[in-house]
């Protein structure tokens, strides 16, 4: 009883918080599940509502009603606008749409700060509700109780529309088969617009009503987006009830969890998500156990493949890394003219990079070093997005692990560069191995969602875990890295740059080697035709996990490099914006081009720091504009400009059905000619 007594208020707060999240997450889930748009600007729609509500709130019922009407309408219009903006990209798949909304979120966030200022706006609830009521002997704000009632009504209304009305049936039908919906005389485009407008209205209404709970401020969009993503990931897209329970659970973790176990609270959300994802992958994919555990020896398919490849059976079903070791077994293609043409940009780039210290001033050189670190992060994103088909927004997590590992190693006196790099890569790889199962169970845009949640949660942990990360202040003053054993600590910018260049060149060369080897082909095959890969006996899940671990290690190297080059580390260096940078770099470069990713990273760092001088404080806005422009203008990135001669597989565009997938092994179609 005492326990109940002490935690009643946080528990009720958790319900209010959870219901708020439910209304927001329901919109997100609706837009993704039925219109196919992973709306990364959903938090911005909430913020629009919250700012409007706060601006119009004056302590009267009229103010609240006006705010509710205006905030809902504004977010609704923004949602409809989003539908118009994403519709031309519909053929290019979900990733392009998600990227566009990401850019719009950056732009929207900047504009909101422009209009409403960078401070949190105060919200005045109607006076009648600005009191407290007695709840089992405790005082509790009346507004929150009222909010609980309103949110329940809103949720019930939304659920009723979706499940009981003809409109709701049309929405569900559109999610299932838009063509057939059109064949029954309903315009799928209208449904698309309606869904996004309704999702916007939900977010806007939640923003107005929830402003006293999650108030409007610069971090609101991101916070709300992260929490609602976690809710959607936990609840899945299948049922509103699951979303509801997930939302309340997250709400309770955020309130009751903090009150019961304050020191554990930051990790609770992470732990809950990991647990649910792992459990669900156990139960939802019973077939998964089958493809993961194939015996290498007696499997007839493996034997056949072994015979066809001219080597003994039993070694066929090993992981991609073993493919790298034995790559000479596959006759290496001789570098022809085309290969030189492909390698030319690489060589030019290398020459330019080597010459840079002679051309630039010290400040620019240190920027170039950071760009290399960011470039490695971008390359790791390319591996996952372009090759493994796992578009990721969460590579800042292993990046952060590597970065903090290096900073702490240096602090403890381990200043030898290679040691730092290897240990950081190892730490990041372990991290990637731990979260990997949660990532690789999903495909396509869902991965974007899960990885974003992982990245954001890692960021939250970084802010909390002050003993290791220094919290929001970051780490500074650790000894400089020594390039080799017995050397001096590197302090000169050009020294650091050369170190970074060597590390980057070695890492990129290794990556290219692996990606062009059969191991890379296995990944490409998995991305192109996963079912066929499974059917020909490949443990697809294992390949993806290995790819995820390798990409994590690479990101860890990038993180380590960044710390070495800039010699301080703050949470912003591994935050949301960096995740956006990395993905943008990949998009600019073309999702399957390693060199494109490096160039993209360079371009972004240059743009960011040039413009930072002339137009301070508008980094996100420019980044957003760059994002939007890239998505519309360069559908295949810089690599697309070269007429499709990029080093990797074609593009992220959906493959036409008649074109055979790039199967790396003889396909079972061999039965045609016995």
């Amino acid at each position, binding site marked *: 009883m005492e326990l109940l007594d002490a935690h009643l208020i946080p528990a009720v707060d958790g319900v209010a918080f959870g219901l708020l999240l439910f209304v927001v997450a329901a919109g997100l889930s609706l837009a993704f599940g039925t219109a196919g748009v992973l709306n990364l600007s959903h938090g911005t729609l909430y913020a629009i509502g919250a700012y409007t509500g706060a601006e119009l709130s004056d302590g009267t019922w009229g103010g609240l009603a006006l705010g509710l009407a205006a905030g809902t309408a504004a977010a609704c219009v923004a949602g409809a606008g989003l539908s118009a903006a994403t519709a031309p990209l519909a053929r290019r798949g979900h990733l392009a749409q998600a990227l566009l909304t990401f850019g719009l979120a950056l732009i929207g966030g900047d504009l909101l700060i422009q209009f409403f200022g960078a401070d949190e706006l105060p919200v005045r609830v109607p006076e009648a509700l600005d009191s407290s009521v007695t709840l089992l002997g405790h005082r509790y704000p009346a507004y929150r109780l009222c909010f609980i009632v309103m949110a329940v009504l809103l949720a019930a209304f939304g659920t009723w529309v979706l499940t009981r009305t003809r409109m709701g049936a049309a929405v569900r039908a559109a999610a299932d*088969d838009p063509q057939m919906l059109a064949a029954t005389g309903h315009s799928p485009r209208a449904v698309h617009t309606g869904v996004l407008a309704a999702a916007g209205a939900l977010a806007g209404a939640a923003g107005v009503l929830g402003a006293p709970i999650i108030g409007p401020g610069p971090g609101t969009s991101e916070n709300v987006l992260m929490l609602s993503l976690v809710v959607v990931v936990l609840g899945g897209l299948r049922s509103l009830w699951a979303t509801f329970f997930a939302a309340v659970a997250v709400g309770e973790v955020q309130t009751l969890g903090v009150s019961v176990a304050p020191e554990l609270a930051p990790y609770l959300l992470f732990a809950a998500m990991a647990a649910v994802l792992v459990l669900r992958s156990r139960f939802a994919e019973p077939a998964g156990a089958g493809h993961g555990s194939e015996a290498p020896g007696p499997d007839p398919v493996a034997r056949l493949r072994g015979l066809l490849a001219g080597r003994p059976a039993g070694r066929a079903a090993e992981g991609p890394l073993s493919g790298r070791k034995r790559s000479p077994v596959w006759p290496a293609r001789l570098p022809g003219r085309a290969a030189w043409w492909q390698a030319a940009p690489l060589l030019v780039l290398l020459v330019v990079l080597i010459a840079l210290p002679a051309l630039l001033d010290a400040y620019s050189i240190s920027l170039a070093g950071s760009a290399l670190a960011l470039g490695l992060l971008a390359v790791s994103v390319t591996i996952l997005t372009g090759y493994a088909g796992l578009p990721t927004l969460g590579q800042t997590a292993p990046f952060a692990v590597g970065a903090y590992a290096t900073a702490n190693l240096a602090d403890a006196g381990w200043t030898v560069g290679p040691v730092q790099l290897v240990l950081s890569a190892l730490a990041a790889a372990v991290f990637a191995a731990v979260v990997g199962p949660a990532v690789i169970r999903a495909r396509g845009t869902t991965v974007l969602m899960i990885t974003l949640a992982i990245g954001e949660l890692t960021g939250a942990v970084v802010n909390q875990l002050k003993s290791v990360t220094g919290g929001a202040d970051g780490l500074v003053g650790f000894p400089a890295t020594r390039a080799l054993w017995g050397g001096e600590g590197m302090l000169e910018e050009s020294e650091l740059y050369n170190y970074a260049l060597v590390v980057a060149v070695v890492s990129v060369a290794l990556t290219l080697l692996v990606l062009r080897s059969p191991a890379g082909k296995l990944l490409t095959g998995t991305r192109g035709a996963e079912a066929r890969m499974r059917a020909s006996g490949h443990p697809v899940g294992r390949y993806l996990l290995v790819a995820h671990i390798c990409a994590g290690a690479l990101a860890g190297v990038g993180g380590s490099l960044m710390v070495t080059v800039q010699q301080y580390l703050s949470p912003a260096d591994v935050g949301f914006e960096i995740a956006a940078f990395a993905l943008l770099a990949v998009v600019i470069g073309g999702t399957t081009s390693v060199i494109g990713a490096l160039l993209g990273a360079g371009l972004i760092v240059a743009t960011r720091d040039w413009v930072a001088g002339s137009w301070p404080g508008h980094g996100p806005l420019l980044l957003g504009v760059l994002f939007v422009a890239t998505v519309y203008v360069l559908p295949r990135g810089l690599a697309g400009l070269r007429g499709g001669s990029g080093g990797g597989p074609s593009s992220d565009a959906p493959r036409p059905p008649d074109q055979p997938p790039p199967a790396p092994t003889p396909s079972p179609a061999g039965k045609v000619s016995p």
Partner: protein
Amino acid sequence: MLELTGLTAGYHGGTVLHGLDLSVPAGTVHAVVGHNGAGKTTLVHTVAGLMRPSAGTVRLDGRDVTGQPAHRIARAGIGLVPQGRRVFAGLTVDEHLRLSHRPPRRGDTTRPSVWTPARVLELLPRLGERRGNRGTDLSGGEQQMLALARALLGSPRVLLLDEPTEGLAPVLVRQIDALVTTLAAEGIAVLLVSPSPARAVACARTLTVLTSGRMTLRLSGEDARADATALHAALELTATGA
């Protein structure tokens, strides 16, 4: 009355349907027969507006509907029963019926017959027993009935049936054949696409053989029923020619 003139359509990779002329008067069945890859489904999709033709016209009772979006074509009175049924997985039978029910505009008396859920259930009583079941819980035959019901509830002038008997038991196949004849008798123009000449011969007034996207034979149903050798020859030729 459905009229196609010079209809040409294809995918990204190339043209599939080459200048097809075809007409289906109200109240008759026109069967299009051809092997896999002959362009039958492309034809149906182009007429239904799921694909945009690169040349040619589609006219519905004299009105040009070429290149209009699918939902407009559906509203103009073309009902589609697609290959593979494609019922909505998440919707119950009842929701299918409610969603598809689109009465003709008031004053529009040109529809051959007006359908309501009640009337559809009268024709397809099996669906009435499964009103609460989701689309994917139904058997293949029931799904086919549901797909047909979905098309009928728009009170169509033209019905496009893409391999409606695919994968069904013989008793259901006969039932579908009987339904097709009944619907044509209501005054609906039926375009039936089938890989099997037997089905086409059984109920069509006119047959068209499609080979690699071109018409290679057209004959009347009576002639085909009297002597199927020409039809078989056309299809055999296709087999050896390919």
